[in-house]
Each structure stands twice: as structure tokens, then as C-alpha cells.
């Protein structure tokens, strides 16, 4: 039941629209089937599946709107949910920022977000993925802990202005942490795909084991400013926080890193190194996302940062109407252009530096300068004269992605990474490894 076809979804939504007596109506129908397996201490700890479909109906009278939801789909239930939403709308206060739904939109080609083989993952497949980590770990005096999560889902939207949109998608997210049994080494690998055939859990587990073995008996070096090579997962965490803050309204209101001293925003201004190009593209083959977003807004390919300059800010429909700007769908993916250098190439070109596998527990310190703090984790190495010299103890950093991207040395190859929250979560990104000078590490951590 959880995955309805386009035709099945449209049939239900058409009925919903037909039942409405309000000034207008918008209905969203979503379904999801998910499964997961979690392991630790070289043994499966928990595993489960969940399934749900729900219909949400928003009706409005003028600027008063109400929403009700149901998960039964016979005619009487559909009519009931519409009546409920209408009752709520009549009781609601006026929202001066309410906008009527969009008319039918023209969407680009369908994006390849649904892969049949991913939709067919079984409990046995998940158990084998766990075994791919556990069995080799056991042989090397290592303890594996990991998580595999997969989902298949659909979204459909229809409204009384004639708009209809549908998309279905699949995703799989795999992470594994390998820890040496003497407690001194730890390695981690993350993989995120919408096509399960691209996932090789044996290869990923092997890399995590190698990192664990190499990171044993780390030495302490003094905190300070270092040249760093950030693997794509490390870079993506900080970039995601920067891109997530590209909201036009906050910038206009003066409470964003993109607000300008004295008034106005930094739209059109160069804020980072001119080699930085960040954009969103629903049809990118590595990170495809649906061609429409919330409210049925059409997603398009759009530059966010071009040659280091803020090219676009994200305007919701209300704020766009106030500022006479074009509304923009929130980016479903984030792509940063990279270069040809591999991480190994970048290490060879580094006289003194630090290789960072990932960051952990990143939190905002100052939203005005986009200063964040966090720590390195699961594989941090000192580089000297083009070679990894030895593992080092983890550092706490205090750094702003804006300062970081102004200190860009080299861009490496791109990799698909989760933007957060696994396959059903915050989408995916295509982010390069990068070499940055003067990255600020402010203290040492004993954590392994």
C-alpha cells in the first residue's frame, strides 16, 4: 500500500479536490516503506521495518486556512477529511502571509530518483551487509559498529488550481565505524546512494578497517592554524551549514551572515575564493532529486555561489512577493564543483598538514560570522613532506566556512555524501575533497 503509482495517487487526490467547498484546496499524499539494520560489538543489535501512508488536506477561505490528515482512503473518509479541514479553516486566524496555491507548473524531465533494485531490499540483504563488516573485523581484532537504512517512498500533490505533481524515490545510507580492540584506533566510512547497485559494503568496511589500524597510538600535536585536507564528508558538513543559511528573508532582515553592514544583503558580492562554484541541479546523475518541491514549486538548475560570488538567495513565495523577486524552490541537492586531484595527490603536494576523515558535533557559535565549533573524528593524520607521517589526536576546531573557503588551496574529486539524516532525510550532496590553509584548531581531545 505504501507506494502508490501516479495514477492511483491522482485518483485519490482528484476525489479530495472534488469534495471541497472552500475557496481552494491543496492535498498532499505521501507514503514510505523503510527498513534498517544496526550492529555493534560485532553483532546485530537492532533491525526493523516501518510503513506508512498519509493524506494531508489544506483548505482556505480568504487568508484563513486549516489542515487535517487521515490515513484511510475510502470515499467517506476522503470527504470527512475535507470537511474537517474546512471547519478548521473557518476557525483559524487570518495569516497575512498566506498565499493561494500555485496553478499548474511546467516541470522539467522526470529525475531518476527511483531504482527498482533499491526498492526490493530484503531483511536478508541487510543482514549480509552487517556480515560484510562483522566477519572481516572479527578476523583482525577489530570491532565493527554500523548502520544500513533503506527506503522507498512517493509524494503526490494536487490543488484546486489544477496543479498535479508526483515523484517516487529510493535511497540507501550506510555507515560503519571500525575500532581496534586495544581502543586506540578508529576508522569510519559513509556511503549514500539512491541505487543499491553502487553500494559495496565489503569495500567500505575494508577502508574503515584500514583507517582504524592506521590511526592507532595517535600522537598529540599543538593546536593552532594548520593546512588541512578535508575528505568530502568533512567538507560537506560545514558547506551544508553555509548553504542552508542562504535564506533571502533572514539576509534582508539583517540577521544572517549574508546581511550587509549598513543594510542590504551580499547578493552579487564575492564572499569566497573565485574557484568556489556551488549550485543545485535536480537532474544530476549522481544526486538526482524530484523536479518539484513543497507547494508544487518547480525545481530548476540554479547557481548559488558562482566564481565565489553570491549568485542567488532562496526566496519563499511570500518574501519574493514582498521584494518583487522570483520565488525559488529550496535546493533538493547541493553540488560543489571539484577538481581532478585525488586525496592522495593532495597529500603528495602538502609539506605540512592534517588529513581529516570527518568532523563531529558541529554546532553554531556565532551566526553572524557563521563560526562553528566541532571536532575531528575516526581518522586524523599528520602529513609531512608529501606523506602521512603518523596519526594524531583529535582536535576541536573553531572555524567559519566563509573563512575556510577564502583560504582554499586545492579542490579535489567530488563524492556523493548524505546531507544529513539518511536516505529519507536531508537529501544528498556532491562535494569535493579540499585543501584549506590556516584552518583553526583550538584544543586537543583525548577521544578515539
Amino acid at each position, binding site marked *: 500500500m505504501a507506494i502508490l503509482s501516479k495514477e492511483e495517487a491522482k485518483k485519490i487526490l482528484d476525489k479530495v479536490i472534488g469534495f471541497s467547498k472552500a475557496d481552494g484546496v491543496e492535498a498532499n499524499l505521501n507514503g514510505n516503506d523503510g527498513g534498517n539494520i544496526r550492529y555493534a560489538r560485532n553483532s546485530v543489535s537492532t*533491525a526493523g521495518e516501518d510503513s506508512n501512508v498519509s493524506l494531508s488536506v489544506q483548505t482556505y477561505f480568504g487568508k484563513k486556512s486549516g489542515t487535517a490528515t487521515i490515513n484511510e482512503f475510502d470515499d467517506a473518509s476522503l470527504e470527512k477529511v475535507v470537511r474537517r479541514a474546512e471547519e478548521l479553516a473557518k476557525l483559524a486566524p487570518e495569516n497575512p502571509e498566506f498565499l493561494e496555491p500555485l496553478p499548474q507548473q511546467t516541470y522539467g524531465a522526470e529525475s531518476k530518483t527511483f531504482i527498482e533494485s533499491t526498492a526490493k531490499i530484503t531483511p536478508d540483504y541487510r543482514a549480509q551487509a552487517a556480515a560484510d563488516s562483522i566477519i572481516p573485523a572479527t578476523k583482525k581484532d577489530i570491532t565493527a559498529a554500523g548502520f544500513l537504512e533503506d527506503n522507498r517512498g512517493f509524494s503526490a500533490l494536487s490543488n484546486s488550481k489544477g496543479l498535479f505533481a508526483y515523484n517516487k524515490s529510493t535511497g540507501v545510507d550506510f555507515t560503519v565505524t571500525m575500532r581496534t580492540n586495544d581502543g586506540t584506533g578508529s576508522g569510519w566510512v559513509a556511503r549514500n546512494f539512491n541505487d543499491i547497485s553502487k553500494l559495496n559494503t565489503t569495500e567500505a568496511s575494508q577502508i574503515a578497517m584500514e583507517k582504524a589500524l592506521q590511526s592507532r597510538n595517535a600522537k598529540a600535536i599543538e593546536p593552532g592554524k594548520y593546512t588541512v585536507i578535508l575528505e568530502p564528508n568533512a567538507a560537506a558538513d560545514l558547506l551544508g551549514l553555509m548553504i542552508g543559511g542562504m535564506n533571502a528573508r533572514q539576509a534582508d532582515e539583517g540577521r544572517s551572515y549574508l546581511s550587509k553592514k549598513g543594510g542590504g544583503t551580499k547578493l552579487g558580492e564575492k564572499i569566497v575564493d573565485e574557484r568556489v562554484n556551488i549550485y543545485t541541479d535536480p537532474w544530476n546523475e549522481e544526486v538526482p532529486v524530484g523536479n518539484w518541491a513543497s507547494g508544487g514549486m518547480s525545481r530548476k538548475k540554479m547557481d548559488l555561489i558562482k566564481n565565489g560570488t553570491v549568485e542567488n538567495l532562496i526566496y519563499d513565495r511570500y518574501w519574493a512577493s514582498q521584494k518583487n523577486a522570483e520565488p525559488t524552490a529550496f535546493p533538493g541537492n547541493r553540488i560543489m564543483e571539484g577538481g581532478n586531484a585525488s586525496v592522495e595527490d593532495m597529500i603528495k603536494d602538502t609539506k605540512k598538514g592534517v588529513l581529516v576523515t570527518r568532523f563531529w558535533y558541529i554546532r553554531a557559535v556565532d551566526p553572524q560570522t557563521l563560526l562553528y565549533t566541532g571536532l575531528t573524528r575516526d581518522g586524523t593524520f599528520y602529513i609531512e613532506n608529501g606523506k602521512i607521517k603518523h596519526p594524531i589526536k583529535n582536535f576541536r576546531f573553531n572555524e567559519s566556512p566563509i573563512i575556510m573557503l577564502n583560504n582554499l588551496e586545492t579542490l579535489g574529486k567530488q563524492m556523493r555524501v548524505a546531507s544529513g*539524516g539518511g536516505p529519507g532525510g536531508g537529501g544528498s550532496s556532491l562535494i569535493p575533497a579540499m585543501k584549506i590553509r590556516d584552518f583553526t584548531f583550538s584544543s586537543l581531545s583525548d577521544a578515539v
Partner: protein
Amino acid sequence: MKRRDFIHLAGMGSGAMALPFSAFAHEVEIGQLLTPLLDTSQKKQLADIALNTAKSLGASYTDVRIGRYLNQFVTTREKKVQGVTNTESFGVGIRVIANGTWGFAASNSVTPDGIKKTTERAVAIAKANSKFQREPVKLAGTPSYGEVSWKTPIVKNGFEVPVKEKIELLLNANAKAMENGASFVNSLIFLVNEQKYFASSEGSYIDQDVHRTWPNFQVNVVDRQSGQFKTRSAFSAPVGMGYEYLDGKAGDKIKAPGDIILYNKSYDIVEDAAMAAQQAKQFIAGKSVEPGKYDLVLEPSHLWLTIHESVGHPTELDRVLGYEANYAGTSFLTMDKWQSKNFKFGSDIVNFVADKTQPGSLGSVGYDDEGVKCKSWELIKDGVLVNYQAIRDQIGMLGQKESHGCCYSQSWSDVQFQRMANVSLQAGKKSLTPEQLISNVEKGIYIVKDGSFSIDQQRYNFQFGGVLFFEIKNGKIAGMLKDVAYQANTQEFWNSCTEICDERDYRLSGAFNDGKGQPSQSNAVSHGSATARFNGVNVINTGRTIL
């Protein structure tokens, strides 16, 4: 916590308030929220179907949670109502042990047929995973309680308070903030009601009705000329209480150092919003801190978060054992430290108690989500590590026979696991007020309310900010500071604790959204303390300039 578990309020400023939100929650009208869906006898009948089905398929243990999770959010900014949202999530989660292995499945189909199929899936998953199981699950015993019930002792059910009343209160608070110089203000009231029915193959049938309430706001002051903006969040706490928390009783107000007002068991949101705007303006004009060593005086609405991260998490046994190694991390409080019986976690005056029964706290329930009656127990006694937090399938590894009763799931759709109890620093035994404490500090900083926070995966190295920072010079408050954060090592920090105020200053604060597990789940937890002093802590300056 997963991104999909958050709703970001439209148009909110940086540092926007984020709401934990079940993946399957959906919006419903208020009338629907107040009508029970099933009575306990219907739930028992449905639960018995799962228990019998699982037994017939060879499960050695089964528990069933039929859950109805209700939320209400009323959100406003300045003079506008942004949203009134009621959500309901209803379904069943079934957990089994088959071939010595856990299996779990959940569904929103709470019918005899739906429950039977979900049970079959749970058993099939357990059997599929048992191939790679090295340690069969062993559950510590727990009494069979028969048919019992528990309810948060609320005075006023927030869901029954008219939405109009909530909107008026928030808009009044917003107006006060704007009158006092705020550039922007966002405010909300967030209500939670968990209606949980638990049944196990061991003969317990437990019906619980749990309530939580959280009023909150963020006041922004923007100085366009200098390009600065500062945020002052509400001095409220999320609580395990009803709407009576918003009564703002005079007896619950505390006049604190720095001429500020803090709140204990009830909260005056309108008064606080006015103060917030004034303090945010002072904050912008504050002096940028000189980095170095300071004696810190940390007030309970700040210290709770330091306790949460540096004491609550490392004393969770599942972290110590490595069950969270791939996500939240492990713990520096390894078993050998506990076994030594002399690991000096903190100074002699440092005593921490874990508790699942404290009135008004977020973690308080009658029974946990695997049918264990809740209690309190000591974690750190006279500075020494004496126990952990553990549940039925892990407590045996400590040689203890009874679970601590701290198993929780955020929803019917997620599997339950060990979650943090309320972990609180016990008040000092000597008579001491915050004013008296500050009068003895030569060079220090008094920090109010939680701000930025970050800690490593084994809980050694942390960095915390705050909301208001007051410089202490020769025993007196000497104005407001900005750009302050402190960094420390957990063990060094708690061993630098030299004074704790007495019981009169003890207060609870906490969070709705403590994240842990994969898939990530939220837990609501409170932490109590009185104002405490920490000597010689490293303070950094967080001021930066960007283009």
C-alpha cells in the same frame, strides 16, 4: 537528530528554533485530539493478538506498544500568527526476541490483521539476523505488573486551553519585546501528549498518559549600522507539567545577580520577553572577552546542558559498551574505572543522581518503554563513579539484577532503547546563595542560560557558550561580556567544582530533543542543579570578522 524529524519555522532568524517532529506525525483538528481512539480493553485485545502470534512463531519474548502521540504547536512572529498545528501519530510497534535476537516492526495499521502481519515481520527480521548473532539477548527479570496505569500529574491540560488564549499570550509577549527594542521576535508554545499502552509476554499491561509543555521565544536585536545582531532566547524550561507552567506565579520568580529575573516552577513569558529585548541591546554593547583562565559561576538554566553532555551521556552503559560507536560515540567512563571504585570523576562535593520519577521533570514516567517501574539511583557519589544507566538487556553486564528503568522510544514506529534519565547535580549541603558565591570570586564570569555546545564522541573535550555573560571583578558583577565560550576536559572540569549553592537555588531545565540512535530518536530529559563554581576554566574569544 534526523533532518526529517525537524520542522524549521518559516522565516525564523539564525539560530532558529527547531521542533522535533515524528516522521509519521500528521495534522489533526483539536476535537480529534481530545477524543480517545481506543479504550484499554480494546488495546489489550489487540496487544494479545501480537503476543499470541509471536509465541506461535517461536518468539521467546514479545512486547507491544500501541501509541498515540499528540503535538500542538502555536507559532507567532511579531504581530503575526504563523501557524496553529495539531498533529497526531497513531500506530503499533512490536518487538520480539526469536533465536536469541531482537526483531522489530511497526505499522499504522492498528487492526487485528495489521497487528498479526506486523508481528510476523518482526519475527522474520529477528530470525534473519540471528544468523550473525554472537551474543544471545539476555533480559534481566522484571515483575509482572498486571493491568496498571500512570499519568503526569498535570493541573491544566494544555490541549484543552483554547488556541485563542495561547495566541493572545504569545502576541502579548511579542508586543512587549518590540516595545522594549527588539527588531524581531519569534515565539511558540509546544505541547506534547504521549498516550502509550504497553503489553508484554511477561504479563504487564501498562497504560500511561504523559504530558510535556514548552513555551519559548527568540528575541533578535539587529544593529544595521554596525552589522551586528544578537539573540536572547527565553529563560523558560521545557517541563513535564501541564499549562499551569505558564501561570508565572510571583513565588517562582528569582531575582538573580546581574539584575535579571529567572524562573523556577512557573514562567512569566510576557515579563521575560520585555527583559529579553533590553538585555539583547546590552549584549550588543557588551565588552568582548579577554581570553584566559576564569572562575566560572554557572547558573542552573546554563549548567543543565553541561551536565547533560558531560555527565548524562558518558554514564550511559550502551555507550560504554560500544552500542553507539557508529553514531553518538562511546564513553571515557570505561568499566575498569567503575570497577576500581575510586575513579575520581569530580571533586568531593560533586554528587549526581539519575532519576525517572522527579515531579515536573521531562523524564518522569511511571514505567519505562519495556515495562520496568521507574526509580532513582546514584551515578557519582562524593565525586566517585558508582553506577551507570542501563536497561534490561545490558544491566546484567554490571552484575546487577534489576534494570534502571530508562528504556524509551520516541514513537510507536521506532524501537525502544536505553535513553538518558534525568541526571542532576545535587545541591550543596552548606548554606550558600549565588550572591554569596559571587562575592568570593576575584576574576570570573557568571553565565546564564544554555547557548552553543559541542563535545567529543567519548565526552572528554567540550566547548560551551551561553546566552548572557557577566564579568565578575573582585566579588562584584562588572557589566556584560560577549564572544565568550569555555573549553575543558570533563574530569578536570568537575574536579574544579569548588562550591555549589544550597537547595533554595536548585532548579530544573532540559531539552525535548536529546538525539541518539540510528535511526536517530529524540528523548526529553531534565537536569537539575543549583548555581555552582568552577575554578580556573579556559575561556576563548569567539569574535571573528568575515568579508
